[in-house]
């Protein structure tokens, strides 16, 4: 029997077994589907969050706030000083009047808070765009550190600081997803293994006959491996389908809500989706192989 003939025979037998024992097979398929679905949810969330962080990083800037008493000359001096730094791409000085106008346009209902002549007008500031290659460089960090100590500067707001926190959150989500995915995948492998072991037990009489008439181990085990592989692949496909359905639902219902639209901005890439399904396939195969290791089939 050629290898291809054997594969064809294995998958045919496996398909028959799946249909005959569909209830037990469904449990295995759903277990792996649920575990991959949950892993996929974490993957999707972390992917979208990571992409947002990347975008924010590209737009990240440093804002240097001067004291309220800073004059226009002092603002100009600081602007020249900043522009002289190699890590700085552009410098945009914002005087108190421009700051107030901007505040009023963004928060019209709070415009009264910053009316001219109030006690604490908005301070002058410098909006600095950092060269991509110099982001987080030692040069930048040491310059910002020295500016923080300089008289005339009240506050330096570096976007990198909160972006680092978001990146940490992404890492946590990925980690939790990975751990949860591994645990659930382990459970799925165990379930598939149990289902395959049960199938092998139910076929023990046939296995003993196959062995008697001269079937090789490859021929005897092949249909069970194929069965695990099919279960895992089906589980992966169910998970991918379920994930897409859930993503569409969230997108439809999210509206302008920040968190859902942030976490479900884009669906998984084709290669990630394929990897999810292949993970199911691998889990099914591993479940089958581990369940038939050693003497499992010998008892037949």
């Amino acid at each position: 029997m050629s290898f291809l003939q054997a594969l064809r025979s294995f998958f045919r037998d496996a398909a028959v077994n799946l249909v005959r024992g569909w209830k037990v097979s469904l449990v295995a398929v759903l277990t792996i589907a649920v575990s991959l679905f949950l892993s996929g949810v974490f993957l999707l969330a972390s992917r979208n969050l990571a992409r947002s962080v990347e975008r924010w990083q590209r737009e990240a800037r440093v804002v240097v706030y001067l004291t309220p008493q800073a004059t226009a000359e002092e603002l100009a001096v600081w602007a020249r000083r900043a522009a002289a730094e190699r890590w700085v791409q552009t410098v945009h000085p914002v005087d108190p009047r421009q700051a107030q106008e901007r505040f009023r346009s963004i928060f019209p209902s709070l415009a009264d808070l910053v009316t001219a002549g109030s006690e604490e007008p908005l301070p002058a500031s410098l909006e600095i765009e950092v060269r991509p290659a110099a982001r987080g460089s030692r040069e930048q960090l040491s310059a910002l550190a020295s500016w923080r100590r300089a008289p005339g500067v009240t506050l330096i707001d570096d976007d990198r600081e909160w972006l680092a926190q978001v990146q940490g959150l992404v890492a946590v989500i990925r980690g939790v997803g990975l751990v949860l995915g591994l645990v659930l995948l382990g459970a799925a492998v165990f379930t598939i293994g149990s289902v395959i072991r049960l199938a092998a037990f139910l076929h023990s009489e046939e296995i003993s006959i196959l062995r008697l008439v001269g079937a090789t181990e490859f021929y005897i085990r092949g249909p069970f491996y194929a069965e695990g592989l099919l279960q895992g692949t089906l589980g992966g496909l169910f998970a991918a389908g379920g994930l897409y359905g859930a993503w569409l639902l969230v997108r439809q219902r999210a509206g302008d809500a920040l968190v859902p639209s942030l976490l479900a901005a884009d669906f998984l890439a084709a290669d990630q989706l394929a990897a999810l399904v292949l993970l199911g396939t691998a889990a099914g195969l591993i479940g089958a192989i581990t369940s038939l290791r050693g003497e499992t089939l010998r008892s037949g």
Partner: protein
Amino acid sequence: MGFQRGKGLIQLFHVSKLYPGGQAALSDLTFEIGRGQFVFLTGASGAGKTTLLRLIFREEVPSSGQILVNGRNVASIPQRKIPYLRRTMGVVFQDFRLIARKTVFENVSYLPRILGVDLRGRKKLAYHALRRVGLAHRMSSFPPELSGGEQQRVAIARALINEPDILIADEPTGNLDPDLAREILRLFLLVNQRGTTVLLATHDREMIQRVGGRVLTLDRGQLATDREVVGTEKPELRLGDEDDLGEEVRAEGSAKDVKDGKDGVEEEGEAGGGLEEVGGERVDA
């Protein structure tokens, strides 16, 4: 059916088998069985008959000594080569070992399927094997629909489908009434007459006395006797007698079953026409 020493198809040299705990199932067995011989293996229950058969088809390995089958030491055959050894043997058990949910055709055609024979070829082989045991018309039946004798004949057909060099039978008539047992024995004799070496384990001494032949007697794991017994009513056999086996063998019916697609085959796409070459043959009832 003569005793041909020196042309051993199966040769045992000082074979012993100890089970865990030191219990000896077989002890220092030395004998050989020539190609084409018909040999009875007898002895009381627990004498070691089944163990000996299991050693020959390599379901177990001897604790000491050598077993040569066709000149090859079966104990030293690597695990992965055992299937190839077994393909040269047919094995029949007392409990038939048929799969109830599979048709007679499927039960019989395991080995051709393993060997990658296509459906048409499998049908042909199964038909020929079943015809030899007089059951060609039951290809699409399921084992529970058959009598005990018919089930054993299906098991024999399965063992014969690859024209094995050796046919090993462990108490094949143990579950059958005397008439059916006689019929099955006659079948084994016919198989032997076509050149297959037959090793038949039985504790039915009356059957041995009736048929006669070479008899190996085991007693508590040892070879007690190796002798020729002259049968009292040896059946007259002639080649082609296989066609006479069975109570209701209907070749025309079997051919019709196949033409009607009732060959018990689940596969689609390949079915049909598998017995065109043999469908025209008649098997006289």
